[in-house]
């Protein structure tokens, strides 16, 4: 099927597929840190469910890349045997569940950061998967159709919390606004049109960046208003570059935890 398709339609470039996969895997791994530490039992299950959705999306995309590479690689090659600089996820997704601390100080996980990040990311993924459902790459379109339903639920779940905590007590509102201001600058990376986007465009994979940005703004503005939070001004200064492999110090620690077992026992089977 792929061989026939390759002659007639544009296939998504590998780097772009890895970008989508890395986003899902890194946020899935990050959110899975709540497992055993959730604020309430039901939310713990919900976060684990959604992490598994994300890991599932990553697996489908890595598997697609591996099949097309036809070089003996598997989904595990991409998840476990690449280092931080080879990951193409947005920096936003690798940040710990807490506000900045001095040095390597350990802090409690802050649910406000989790809720805010999930909202900022899924508000991007719902319209993006929607666009990719109609893309020229049939395999990616199929993955997009499956992922869209998951992302729609993730967005609904995150927005429910965002409104409850934003329009909640003084303390919860303050924490949500703090999380918003901490994470907001990292969203600038969504809108930088660089190498990845150029690659996708030259492969004929048309992702309409302007339409995406206006959909994202509409979702975010509506939910912030409902949550009585204040949208911060447009970020200035350094724009994070995770999607081209320049990451924060947090990604290596996350990957170390995720990859150590596979690297200690290469090729091990359950």
């Amino acid at each position, binding site marked *: 099927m792929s061989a026939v398709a390759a002659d007639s339609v544009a296939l998504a470039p590998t780097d772009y597929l890895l970008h989508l996969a890395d986003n899902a895997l890194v946020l899935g791994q990050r959110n899975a840190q709540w497992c055993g530490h959730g604020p309430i039992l039901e939310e713990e*299950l919900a976060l684990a469910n959604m992490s598994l959705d994300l890991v599932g999306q990553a697996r489908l995309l890595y598997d697609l890349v591996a099949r097309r590479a036809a070089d003996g690689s598997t989904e595990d090659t991409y998840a476990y045997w690449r280092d931080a600089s080879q990951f193409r996820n947005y920096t936003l997704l690798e940040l710990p569940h807490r506000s900045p601390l001095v040095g390597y100080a350990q802090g409690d996980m802050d649910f406000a950061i989790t809720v805010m990040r999930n909202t900022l990311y899924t508000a991007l993924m719902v319209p993006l998967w929607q666009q990719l459902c109609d893309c020229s790459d049939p395999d990616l379109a199929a993955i997009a159709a499956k992922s869209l339903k998951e992302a729609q639920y993730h967005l609904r779940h995150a927005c429910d919390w965002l409104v409850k905590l934003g329009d909640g007590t003084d303390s919860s509102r303050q924490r949500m606004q703090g999380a918003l201001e901490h994470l907001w600058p990292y969203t600038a990376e969504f809108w930088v049109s660089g190498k990845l986007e150029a690659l996708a465009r030259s492969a004929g994979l048309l992702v309409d960046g302007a339409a995406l940005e206006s959909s994202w703004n509409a979702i975010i503005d509506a939910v912030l208003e409902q949550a009585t939070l204040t949208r911060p001004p447009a970020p200035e200064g350094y724009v994070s570059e995770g999607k081209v492999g320049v990451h924060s110090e947090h990604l290596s620690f996350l990957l170390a935890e995720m990859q150590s077992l596979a690297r200690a026992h290469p090729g091990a089977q359950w």
Partner: protein
Amino acid sequence: MSSPSVLKEWPLWEVFVRSKQGLEHKHCGSLHAADAAQALLMARDVYTRRQEGVSIWVVPSKAIVASNPDEKGELFDPAADKIYRHPTFYEIPEQVGHM
């Protein structure tokens, strides 16, 4: 009496799920949630993770009026010796088919 606008404890909700083949919603458990919308989301995450259902109801537990277990005798025991109330003493004609 505490102010009604501040809940220290989240209210309890009873969860009913209808399975794909099922015709009716069946009670499957309960959970705590701040409001009805959240109760639905949580019921989805807790009780339908393994494709158990295609529809969910949540009902505030306090809205359920239950019979008193102490009155079990007077409520239910009198039915025990009325076997003639079971429709087992009739022969159903074959033409009727499955009832």
